[in-house]
């Protein structure tokens, strides 16, 4: 696999959206190509960062109570 092809599918690989065959090819390329490997690490860190920072909020308990009351007349 060439770097260009690897980078083209990097997000799909990161999102686990590639076919098993392509996944193997990309994984092998990343293991042997430091520049692509670094780029992958960076993108992967960014995805985790977004997940953590933007998931701290949840449904406020008062809203949940209100919804339960409306749904089930409690």
């Amino acid at each position, binding site marked *: 696999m060439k770097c260009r092809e690897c980078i083209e599918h990097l997000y799909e690989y990161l999102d686990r959206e590639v076919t098993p065959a392509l996944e193997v090819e990309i994984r092998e390329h990343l293991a042997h190509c430091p520049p692509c490997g670094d780029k992958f690490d*960076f993108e992967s860190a960014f995805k985790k960062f977004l997940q953590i920072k933007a998931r701290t909020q949840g*449904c406020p308990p008062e809203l949940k109570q209100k919804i339960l009351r409306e749904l089930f007349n409690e």
Partner: protein
Amino acid sequence: MPAPKPTPPPTTPPAPTDARRAGFEKEALVHLDSLYRVALRLAGNAADADDLVQETMLKAYRSWDQYQPGTNAKGWLLTILRNSFINEYRRRTRHPETVDVDTIEPFAVFEDVQEDDPQGAFFDRIVDDEVLRAIDGLPEAFRETVVLSDVEGMSYQEIGKILNIPVGTVKSRLFRARQMLQAKLYDYAVGMGYIKGRPA
């Protein structure tokens, strides 16, 4: 006189409403946090997000019979939520659409930081509120795509179904959205002195 045989306690099957409620609690109510987060990012304010989630749950419970148990409840609920948003809220919410899509210069942040901070450690110093602000500044089409993918962990196919767009469009929006977010947060981090800026 023989004692009357004790009558066994009547075994009543659970009332249909109880089963309906139990199913809804198990499959739908567990997604309240996700629905609320998506509602907040769509509506842009807590009051409308509250109404939107409440309305979504009422609609969902009313049409719960149309839902196939064990299928994708989260996707089903998010579709209801987004349709409600488009039909009833989008017109009147004033989402702070601060960024014009054409004014963002998407660039690969990695190219700039690969020498000083290739792991992107500077991102970790950015507080939650700033990240949410950056997401809220994205144009709606990009914002909803990146939230469903990166924050809520939906697959390309699920996102395509919720947003009613082809998977190829999900991919391209996601690519642009991530680049815009990285560029925005990078600029913020440079401004805060978390990382050296790129040479002008």
